[in-house]
């Protein structure tokens, strides 16, 4: 029989061991990021932003470079031709020094235009945080209003810390290898995989704490845009785990998402990792393609939320003795609707901003597609509920709009407006059926519908790229088909309905990997955490509402009766 004393004396060293190991791993990460850049001479970061953008970043409307690079591979069959092109360009450049100077400033202005676009759309995405806080707060019971606001607030703060420390480096520490953001100057200093190399990268390894190679104007512009995307995955979980999770365990969830869960999958798809290169390595279309994050952001958040909700169990009273789900109606429909509109507004940064540049004129198509999917998703959910239950449910109409937005996020740049409208309809159906399915069949309690909106519709979005992409955009995406694709010059990412079955295959595969990674990794980690210490609040706190037991204040303090001492 062990006494409480031996329990504590046993757990104390374990905690210390874990802490010291974490410090060791962190130190190793930092060293690993510093060593290669000490060994290599070039390239250098540009913190002042005065060397980012010159004649090499000048391109025409078709994306063709103004300058001609010197060919390095002398064994290539077209070496002679390339060498001649290069020599001709050098000769021309020597004759026209003024044109070269002009090209330098044009290149700088091009990058500057894209900086402005990327940063400003990033600020719009940041504001989605406010929309989600309003939406989720409105959807829960009044007694948990302060709890909801604090979760949304702390999500931004703590996930940001984790992403700043290690997440950004894990995700984009090797982005220059295969996926350099050329619109922002290319961030050439982020060029090292911690695990893997070449076309099989698994984890970025430069830019920890945004120092050294990441202390660079282009990298920081990129980081601002990417951190607010990570935050989106970070706050999605709030919608599914609220009204019963303790604050400390929520903070652990946020650190986990910002440091590991999100950056790892993000590296695979956006950081030049192995999934993005499947077109080059295994001939699967353009590799796995997700334009703005239906899967990378939303499905990761949604399936992480699903795992956490399974571990936490349903809210007290959600299911009666007969197993039937009970309704806990939203306490403020005004917040729900305003929050949804704020999210729609922010999405105008989320999707069009993902071009990382205003010089990519596809942004207008992306903006229209995003709106079309939003309205068709909402219309579908409204009508579905109207026909099935006799009254349109306002919260489901809002969920329907978000479902359309989530599903169009991956395909928004690659499809035409007709397809965008259809994708919205599909998402509206998926979210309605998903909410009913979770409530009645799986019995996974999801107060705000986060699993259906972000998880299920995120997967739908990833797959829709492989169905509806019409080949008009994305020429040379992920390094595939730069000159011609499927025998046509200028052909971009193409889905099954337009003749590329391999793209469909890789999209299905990628979406499944996304769900498996997000659910699996979260489940293993937090099942363990929950076994050590319960992540759920006490029964009494849950009945009373989490506001006072967890945070010492009610969301609406006038509901409390105060005794003031004078």
């Amino acid at each position: 029989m062990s006494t409480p004393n031996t329990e504590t004396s046993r757990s104390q060293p374990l905690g210390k061991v874990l802490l010291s190991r974490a410090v060791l791993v962190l130190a190793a990460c930092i060293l690993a990021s510093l060593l290669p850049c000490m060994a290599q001479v070039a390239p250098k970061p540009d913190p002042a932003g005065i060397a980012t953008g010159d004649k090499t970043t000048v391109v025409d409307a078709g994306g063709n470079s103004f300058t001609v690079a010197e060919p390095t591979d002398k064994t290539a069959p077209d070496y002679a031709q390339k060498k001649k092109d290069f020599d001709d360009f050098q000769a021309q450049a020597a004759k026209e020094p003024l044109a070269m100077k002009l090209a330098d400033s044009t290149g700088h202005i091009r990058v500057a235009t894209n900086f402005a676009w990327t940063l400003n759309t990033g600020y719009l995405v940041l504001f989605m945080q406010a929309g989600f806080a309003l939406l989720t707060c409105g959807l829960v019971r009044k007694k948990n209003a302060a709890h909801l606001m604090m979760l949304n607030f702390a999500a931004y703060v703590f996930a940001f810390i984790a992403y700043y420390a290690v997440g950004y480096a894990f995700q984009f520490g090797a982005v220059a290898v295969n996926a350099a953001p050329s619109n922002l100057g290319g961030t050439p200093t982020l060029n090292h995989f911690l695990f893997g190399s070449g076309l099989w990268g698994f984890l970025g390894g430069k830019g920890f704490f945004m120092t050294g190679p990441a202390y660079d104007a282009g990298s920081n512009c990129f980081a601002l845009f990417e951190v607010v995307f990570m935050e989106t995955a970070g706050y999605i979980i709030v919608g599914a785990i609220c009204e019963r999770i303790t604050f400390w365990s929520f903070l652990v969830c946020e650190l986990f998402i910002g440091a590991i869960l999100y950056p790892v999958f993000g590296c695979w798809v956006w950081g030049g990792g192995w999934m993005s290169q499947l077109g080059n390595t295994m001939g699967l279309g353009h590799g796995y393609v997700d334009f703005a994050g239906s899967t990378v952001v939303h499905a990761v958040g949604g399936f992480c939320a699903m795992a956490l909700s399974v571990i936490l169990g349903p809210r007290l009273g959600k299911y009666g003795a007969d197993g039937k789900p009970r309704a806990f109606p939203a306490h403020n429909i005004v917040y729900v609707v305003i929050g949804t509109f704020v999210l729609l507004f922010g999405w105008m940064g989320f999707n069009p901003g993902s071009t990382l540049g205003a010089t990519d004129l596809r942004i207008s198509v992306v903006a229209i597609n995003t709106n079309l999917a939003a309205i068709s998703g909402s219309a579908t959910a409204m009508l579905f509920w109207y026909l099935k239950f006799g009254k349109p449910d306002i919260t489901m109409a809002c969920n329907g709009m978000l479902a359309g937005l989530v599903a169009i996020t991956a395909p928004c740049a690659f499809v035409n407006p007709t397809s965008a409208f259809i994708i919205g309809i599909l998402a509206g159906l998926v979210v309605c059926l998903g909410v009913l399915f979770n409530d009645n069949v799986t019995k996974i309690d999801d107060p705000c519908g986060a699993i259906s909106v972000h998880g299920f519709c995120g997967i739908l979005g990833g797959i829709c790229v492989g169905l509806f992409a019409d080949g008009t955009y994305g020429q040379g995406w992920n390094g595939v088909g730069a000159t011609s694709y499927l025998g046509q010059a200028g052909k971009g990412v193409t889905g099954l309905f337009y003749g590329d079955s391999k793209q469909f295959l890789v999209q299905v595969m990628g979406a499944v990997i996304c769900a498996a990674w997000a659910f699996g990794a979260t489940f293993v980690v937090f099942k363990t955490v929950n076994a050590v210490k319960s992540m759920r609040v006490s029964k009494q706190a849950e009945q009373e509402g989490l506001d006072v037991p967890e945070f010492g204040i009610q969301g609406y303090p006038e509901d409390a009766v105060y005794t003031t001492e004078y």
Partner: protein
Amino acid sequence: MKMIEAIIQPNKLEDVKEALYGIGVEAITVSEVRGHGRQKGHTETYRGSEYTVDLLPKIKIEAVVADSRAEQIVGVLSTAARTGQIGDGKIFVFAVEEAVRIRNDERGETAL
């Protein structure tokens, strides 16, 4: 003296107030209350799950009046609050033993 207590639909409050002022009732107390009668509320669906709203919002009006006026006031109040639908509410009349005006300790009907 009689205490008239009426539980009415919230949206009939304005009509009832106007009618009472019209016949010279000067002092009333109004509270927002919740409750149900024989019908026991109604059910709604939220995100596909049913829930029952059984304690519906109502308005309670209290007025203490002279014995001689009670019958007339009850009649006016009942007419003004009526919609003819289920849930229109109830009126109760009690005998009141004493009334005190706190300001000057007046007693009885003069204190009303």
